[in-house]
């Protein structure tokens, strides 16, 4: 099965019953599969007039208490940014699939890239926090889509599946579990206000039609949900909470693989380049290079870097000019060497080994 189809199957298994999207290469198979699947499950697929509308519609869908998702690629992701900020600020749980292609602009519609990783974290204006997952197998396209829904609900944030054209269009064997774990958002407790945080900083969810009579606004709002856009302290407290509720849970959210934690030379990768690193490690059995594969990229699980106690250097192959390498360097004293690959072709394992040998 193809990665994009596995993603749609993951969404369906996770109980997603509303999809709004706009066709864009190389993500369209996700929409096409949802268009086939949802009507038969009592769900709704709607093709919107653009990506701004798609993002808006899934936020509307999410507030009815229905798990909602859209799928896109670079240019569409850019168009979604304003409403992604709205979702973050209004604490709307929703899932956005980004099958990354070469940018900037129209770039390489049919070729893979990982150029939207910082945009996922910082792309909308203002400060906020989100969750971003990165699959490197078709199986993970399924598993991490399910996980994205659970995390979106758990933290009431937009959760992104930051995949790429290689994994989205890859076909390999997938095993669907009979049942997947779907953890619904916690509901609001009696006497609490709709945007009043609990101890974990996340307010209980108040979907429409349940008598909560909640007002949802993109303006700075108080715990009642009412606009209060000129109170500096209130705004600061709200934004800090929205960032903190995700950032302080970063190790709960972290999903990763670690190979050879005692290594001196350590690869860090996510998405398609993980496949190149794994092959490189297989091709060099005599060397014991370390490898950290990140399935969670945001919030960045910086504590994992400390597990490589002997690390002298971190090598970071990415299909961009070092977006996550820059993040890694913020957290460690050792040199972090980006190994960028642009243009759509995946890093060749022998090239990764050559880069590693240069640091021996």
């Amino acid at each position, binding site marked *: 099965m193809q990665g994009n189809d596995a993603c749609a199957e993951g969404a369906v298994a996770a109980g997603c*019953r*509303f999809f*709004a999207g706009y066709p864009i290469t190389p993500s369209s198979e996700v929409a096409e599969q949802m268009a086939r699947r949802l009507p038969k499950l009592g769900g*709704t697929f*709607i093709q*919107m*007039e*653009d990506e*701004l*509308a*798609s993002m*808006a*519609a*899934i*936020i*509307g*869908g*999410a*507030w*009815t*208490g*229905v798990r*909602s998702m859209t799928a896109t690629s670079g240019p569409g992701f850019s168009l979604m940014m*304003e*409403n992604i900020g*709205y979702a973050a600020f209004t604490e709307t749980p929703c899932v956005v699939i980004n099958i990354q292609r070469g940018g900037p602009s129209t770039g390489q519609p049919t070729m893979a890239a990982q150029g939207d990783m910082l945009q996922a974290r910082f792309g909308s204006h203002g400060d906020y926090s989100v969750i971003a997952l990165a699959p490197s197998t078709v199986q993970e396209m399924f598993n991490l889509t399910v996980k994205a829904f659970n995390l979106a609900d758990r933290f009431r944030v937009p959760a992104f599946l930051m995949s790429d054209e290689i994994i989205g269009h890859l076909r390999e064997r997938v095993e669907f579990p009979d049942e997947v774990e779907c953890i619904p958002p916690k509901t609001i407790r009696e006497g609490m206000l709709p945007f009043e945080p609990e101890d974990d900083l996340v307010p209980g969810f108040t979907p*429409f*039609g*349940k*008598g*909560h*009579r*909640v*007002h*949802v*606004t*993109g*303006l700075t709002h108080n715990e009642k949900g*009412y*606009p209060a856009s000129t109170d500096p302290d209130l705004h600061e407290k709200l934004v800090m909470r929205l960032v903190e509720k995700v950032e302080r849970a970063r190790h709960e959210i972290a999903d990763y693989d670690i190979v050879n934690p005692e290594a001196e030379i350590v690869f860090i990768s996510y998405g398609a380049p993980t496949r190149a690193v794994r092959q490189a490690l297989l091709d060099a059995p005599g060397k014991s290079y370390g490898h950290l594969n990140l399935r969670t990229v945001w919030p960045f699980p910086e504590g994992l870097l400390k597990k490589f106690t002997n690390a002298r250097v971190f090598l970071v192959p990415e299909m961009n000019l070092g977006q996550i390498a820059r993040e890694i360097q913020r957290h460690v004293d050792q040199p972090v060497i980006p190994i960028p690959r642009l243009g759509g072709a995946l890093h060749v394992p022998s090239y990764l080994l050559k880069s590693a040998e240069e640091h021996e």
Partner: protein
Amino acid sequence: MSAEDWFREDRLPHIFCAGCGNGTIINCTLEAVDSLGWKIDDTVFVSGIGCSSRASGYIKTDSLHTTHGRAIPFATGVKMAKKDFNVVVFSGDGDLSAIGGNHFIHACRRNIDITVICMNNQIYGMTGGQGSPCTPKGAVSTTTPYGMEENPFDLCELASAAGANYVARWTSYHVKELTQAIKTGLQRPGLSFIEVVVQCPTNYGRRNRLRDVQSMISAMKDHALLKEKRDRLLAEGKPIPDDMFVVGTLTDRNRPALGVNE
């Protein structure tokens, strides 16, 4: 229940200027929903950005105050994800026809079962009186200091052409007719569009020799041409005065609609 029961009293005082007509339109809308026996918890108000769009926050239902121009796609999501909600959109002329124009067209094309009420004050009121796509030719705004040169949008013709089932235009002077039009629109399956020409004394009237509320309302009343009269003039081959705009029920039909709760 009465229309007052739909207000969020704890949101008062509202932000509208003295003399603003938006409150009248909210009143007419709530009068209409209440007279239909709609339930607060089955109804969702959605709005974009601008003075008009603050309306959703003064109403007791679940509501979404969204981003500029995007009220309709948010509302589309609410309606399509859960068809048993009654969904009403408040928008302004700038919000709906400039930044949100494409969404408006496609919502009419889909003929989705929501009601869109446009408070057309012919200006960007909240941001200080900039020209909008509905600013009349020659009118002064902060971005048309020498008079608007562009042609204004006829939002009702647009909605009809794009496929909306019900289209009506009134003004904030025509309270009874407006309430009835909203009531009809709410009941009609498919997209109902009600444009309400409304006075903005602060940012439109002040710059266009309509300083007080009364002169603005008189001007609206004097320039409103009943559709029936317009049709009669046309039939008689008589000219329609340039400075008049048509009010009344402009489209009322039953084309297949999207998102109707069956």
